[in-house]
């Protein structure tokens, strides 16, 4: 499978995606917010500095909202990383969340982590697991993560092979299991080790996630019984109607059904805790967004003059108004969804 970008698909253009999303319903996200007594979404305070280190990935998952893959060449430069470090150092933002693509494919990934550690921040890496086995030079990633006390957050759509491989590619489940065992071997996910290993569940299709707590119980039992694997928490994340998941929805005839489902499952309690209210998302090229999904739809933060890491202004970002769209229904459906799982 190639990325939408490689295939020159219409859906690789952010505006085309937005047009499709806007055409669907006369029930806008903002009107739904207003009905729930929320005038607009506003940042409470930036607590997570989320950085996309590039769109290159060793996998091409069917649901990827980044449209990442081996054929994507966009990658954050060391200069932009340096800028991120400089701006972050002038703040008290406690957590840094590194994502991609596969962030480890950025040639300056390890340098960046070492520099971030000097600032004494909590660092999370969204590791797709298979990267660890993709090349001998990545085999020591578990040790590197442990040395730097990185929180590892890894996608595993299900505790069974068929559903996982259907979403993430043939052979991904077996490699993911092997990588999890390698992480466990050095203490990740084990009580008392201090090394945190969290898993992420995405539905393998056009439906909402199961309740986070009950699914976590299943994952823990199945992975322990069958593979001897332990981990800390399971985060359930709703698939967003963006990029390749949007393509899947349209091609499979599920688009209208899924959007209707998201809209009808709007949950005001989840809306109050969406991740954009405590996160700033930084693109590979240094532009600033309210969240990773807005980033992929190229919807920069509202104030254009402050929409690049060059002009990072935390006073503005801490209280900024969030830009919303129809895709936001993905974060407010059911129990809610964020990079840290359910929000209500």
């Amino acid at each position: 499978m190639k990325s939408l970008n490689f295939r020159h698909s219409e859906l690789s253009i952010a505006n085309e995606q937005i047009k499709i999303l806007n055409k669907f319903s006369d029930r806008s996200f903002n009107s739904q917010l207003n009905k729930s007594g929320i005038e607009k979404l506003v940042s409470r305070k930036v607590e997570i500095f989320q950085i996309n280190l590039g769109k290159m990935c060793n996998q091409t998952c069917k649901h990827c909202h980044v449209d990442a893959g081996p054929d994507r060449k966009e990658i954050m430069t060391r200069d932009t990383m340096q800028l991120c470090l400089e701006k972050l150092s002038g703040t008290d933002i406690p957590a840094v969340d590194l994502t991609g693509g596969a962030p480890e494919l950025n040639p300056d990934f390890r340098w960046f982590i070492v520099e971030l550690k000097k600032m004494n921040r909590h660092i999370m890496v969204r590791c797709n697991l298979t990267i660890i086995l993709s090349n001998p030079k990545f085999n020591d990633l578990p040790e590197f993560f442990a040395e730097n006390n990185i929180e590892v957050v890894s996608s595993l759509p299900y505790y069974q092979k068929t559903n996982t491989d259907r979403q993430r590619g043939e052979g991904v489940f077996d490699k993911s299991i092997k990588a999890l065992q390698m992480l466990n071997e050095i203490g990740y996910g084990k009580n008392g080790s201090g090394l945190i290993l969290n898993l992420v569940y995405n539905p393998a299709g056009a439906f909402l996630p199961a309740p986070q707590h009950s699914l976590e119980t299943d994952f823990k039992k199945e992975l322990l019984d069958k593979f001897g694997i332990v981990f800390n928490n399971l985060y359930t994340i709703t698939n967003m109607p963006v990029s390749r998941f949007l393509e899947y929805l349209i091609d499979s005839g599920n688009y209208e059904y899924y959007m209707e489902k998201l809209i009808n499952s709007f949950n005001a309690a989840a809306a109050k805790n969406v991740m954009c209210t405590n996160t700033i998302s930084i693109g590979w090229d240094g532009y600033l967004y309210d969240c990773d999904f807005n980033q992929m739809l190229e919807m920069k933060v509202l104030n254009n003059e402050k929409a690049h890491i060059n002009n990072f202004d935390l006073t503005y970002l801490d209280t900024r108004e969030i830009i919303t769209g129809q895709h936001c229904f993905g974060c407010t459906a059911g129990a809610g969804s964020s990079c840290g799982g359910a929000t209500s």
Partner: protein
Amino acid sequence: MESYFKPEDLSKFPNVSEFGEDLAKKFFDYYGAVFAEGALTSREKSLIALAVSHTVQCPYCIDAYSHDALEKGCSEEQMMEAVHVATAIRGGASLVHGVQMMNHVKKVSM
């Protein structure tokens, strides 16, 4: 093409209140209470509903509870096992009457 069963009608289920509000309200309140977490988990109830849907062969129910079971975190194997439970009971219900057949045959035979 005309069809008795239209998938889009499933979402119109609440519209039955149009022709009788009081009874519809009572039914939907009861329905909601039945499927709430109780002595059985909502996931167990979803699998029972999936099995019963196949027994009563209701296309709306099959669509609804296939989807619901996925959203309760059920695996495809669990869902298929539930369908086999329904099948076994339906098949067994026929087969157990074989005893009645045998009784009759033995009664009238030398």
